[in-house]
């Protein structure tokens, strides 16, 4: 005889969950009571949004399914932004919420909210349990759905009486049977043959790699494939890390804040090989002018992404790793396209990313110093805005799953809690949250979580006393009318100190490296308040809706 709550906790453990991020409340008391003497580790956050982001950060850094827990009503609603963030970036996560007892459902009971209704459009699937006997099966299904195919968040809503209800026999199912869910993993052979034919014939091929490569752990295969055929690779924001930053074929990020050489290469290419990417508007700009001369091969596990924003010539539905493996087995080394590689190299040399090198404190410099200090052996998480783009542009990543950022939803406040989650996935690596002074204040209360559990996340605040990215748009497109984007100065070190966290304020260039070293040397959390050049911009920049080779702060291809 076991209660629903006990079965839940045991089921989570059977799924290999070793850490749960959560926050208690009335209807989850039976679950919390089970956690009290369970070996399942629980981290008490300071806001449920952080629980969702931490589970997400854990999932992205580890490749496993993350898990979080909240009470009904306000608790569940506070998870929403975190669930939506995970959904947009295809992150495997299971969110568990308490619910009012089934007898009160639909009665506007105290702390009742229809969280399955609310999360319908932002979950891969969700469940409202009505019977304690379903707990084990649903947990099994939820983890299966979250972690397979195109990953995504799944929510399980558990009414209080389902938690307290007693079940005679508990058997954890070892299989799921879902007749409406059969992801395609293996690419269609005929399509693969067609793709190979195009690749062999192409003179100016480019690989456009996205988060799908990271998701399916296809980075090694991708690098092998690109190297074998000498095809330059550009990555989306989500794809960063799938090829080392210093790899000669790596063109960096493409799109709105992409490198000029990546955008030029796309524009001139005659074959675009899109792998685990979804032709997002921030990447492709004006759709008709994106890769206008190229035939397109699109490899993706989600058939709905193929042909959604751009017509493709060879669609291949499948797991990017398996498809790349199949292609590698079939394709032979081709002669390198020397003229094309030379052209790309020329762009790389003549259109590098740049910033003004003078005595003032430039954020790009800070990121470069950090990059050189850790040499790719760190997990770098970002918030959203300029801080995110500078990191994407200037940090040289070495491994997949070491770059963690909210791409699709662009959630300010994501970084710090996600970094906390990432630490539990990779306790062997230092974890940095690169933040803006706006974003960090969206979940700054998590300093409480970091301090209480001595979670050694290093927060590097690129403090420009502005909502920098919005200010940049106002500067460029709204006549410098800085409407509500200035933030009064905050002494972040003092806030950190109040939580019992060490920190340092940095105001000049020569203090940067010592501050970064102090952060690395500190065995607990650490805050760096970098007072950067206030009106620094992120360049190059493609204005929204323009062609990606029409960049501000860049030049025309030479």
């Amino acid at each position, binding site marked *: 005889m076991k209660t629903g709550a006990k079965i839940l906790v045991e089921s989570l453990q059977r799924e290999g969950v070793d850490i749960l991020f959560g926050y208690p409340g009335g209807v989850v008391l039976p679950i919390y009571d089970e956690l009290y003497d369970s070996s399942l580790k629980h981290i008490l956050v300071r806001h449920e949004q952080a629980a969702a982001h931490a589970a997400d950060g854990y999932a992205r850094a580890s490749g496993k399914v993350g898990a979080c827990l909240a009470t009904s009503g306000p608790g569940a609603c506070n998870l929403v932004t975190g669930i939506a963030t995970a959904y947009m970036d295809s992150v495997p996560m299971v969110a568990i919420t308490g619910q009012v007892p089934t007898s009160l459902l639909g009665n506007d009971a105290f702390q009742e909210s229809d969280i399955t209704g609310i999360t*319908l459009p932002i979950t891969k699937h969700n469940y*409202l349990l009505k019977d304690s006997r379903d707990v084990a099966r649903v947990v099994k299904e939820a983890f299966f759905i979250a972690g397979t195919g195109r990953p995504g968040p799944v929510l399980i809503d558990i009414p209080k009486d389902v938690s307290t209800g007693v079940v005679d026999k508990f058997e954890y199912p070892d299989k799921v049977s879902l007749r*409406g869910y059969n992801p395609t993993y293996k690419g269609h052979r005929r399509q693969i043959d067609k793709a190979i034919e195009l690749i062999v014939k192409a003179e100016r091929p480019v690989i456009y790699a996205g988060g799908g490569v990271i998701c399916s752990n296809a980075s090694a295969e991708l690098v092998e494939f690109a190297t074998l055929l000498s095809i330059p690779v550009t990555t989306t924001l989500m794809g960063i890390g799938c090829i080392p930053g210093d790899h000669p074929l790596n063109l960096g990020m493409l799109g709105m804040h992409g490198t000029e050489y990546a955008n030029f290469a796309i524009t001139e290419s005659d074959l675009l090989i899109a792998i685990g990417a979804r032709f997002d508007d921030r990447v492709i700009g004006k759709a008709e002018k994106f890769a206008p001369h190229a035939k397109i091969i699109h490899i993706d596990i989600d*058939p*709905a992404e193929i*042909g959604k924003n751009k017509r493709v010539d060879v669609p291949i539905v499948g797991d990017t790793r398996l498809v790349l493996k199949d292609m590698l087995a079939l394709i032979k080394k081709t002669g390198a396209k020397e003229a094309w590689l030379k052209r790309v190299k020329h762009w790389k040399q003549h259109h590098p990313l740049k910033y003004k090198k003078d005595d003032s404190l430039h954020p790009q410099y800070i990121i470069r110093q950090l990059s050189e200090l850790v040499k790719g052996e760190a997990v770098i998480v970002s918030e959203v805005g300029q801080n995110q783009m500078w990191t994407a542009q200037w940090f040289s990543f070495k491994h997949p799953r070491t770059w963690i950022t909210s791409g699709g939803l662009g959630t300010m406040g994501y970084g710090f809690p996600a970094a906390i989650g990432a630490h539990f996935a990779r306790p062997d690596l230092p974890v940095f949250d690169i933040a803006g002074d706006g974003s960090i204040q969206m979940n700054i209360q998590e300093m409480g979580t970091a301090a209480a559990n001595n979670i050694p996340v290093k927060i590097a605040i690129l403090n420009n006393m502005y909502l920098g990215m919005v200010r940049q748009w106002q500067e460029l497109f709204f006549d410098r009318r800085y409407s509500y984007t200035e933030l009064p100065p905050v002494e972040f070190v003092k806030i950190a100190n109040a939580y019992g966290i060490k920190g340092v304020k940095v105001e000049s260039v020569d203090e940067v490296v010592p501050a970064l070293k102090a952060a690395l040397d500190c065995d607990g959390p650490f805050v760096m308040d970098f007072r950067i050049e206030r009106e620094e911009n992120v360049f190059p920049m493609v204005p929204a809706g323009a062609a990606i080779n029409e960049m501000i702060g860049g030049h025309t291809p030479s």
Partner: protein
Amino acid sequence: MKPHTLSVLVENKAGVLSRVTGLFSRRGFNIESLAVGTCEEPGMSRITIVVIGDDEKIEQVMKQLNKLIDIIKVTDLTENERVERELAMIKVSAEPGTSRAEIMQIAQIFRAQIIDVGAKSVILQVVGDTDKIDALEKLLRQYGVKELVRTGRIGMLRGTKTVGVGR
């Protein structure tokens, strides 16, 4: 842009209809007609949806539907030889006398049945495709249509082909 009739086989579970309709409104597809009922498979239901859009939109909506876990199979009937029907009930003002006789005559031509006769009105029941029902309604207008209710459209492939799970 033409109407497509999608036949969607779903798990017969709570909330499945809102998953389907929510997806349509969220992605900006208008549902022209909707019919839901049990079907030949135990534990499953069939939803028939008529949606207007160009081929790419329809392909996208079908792919998105297929992603829903509780959806088992999606078929576009429009690409095949098929039969489609709707049922309507129409309550018409019909004072005893000439107008009532005329209404009876119209009903006969349309093979509609009179399923209720009141002192001042009658209810007609008609089965047919959308055009037929529209035509009947138009003809009855002059007598005064007090109420009209129609089901969503349902459809089936002609011949031995089916849109079921197959065995």
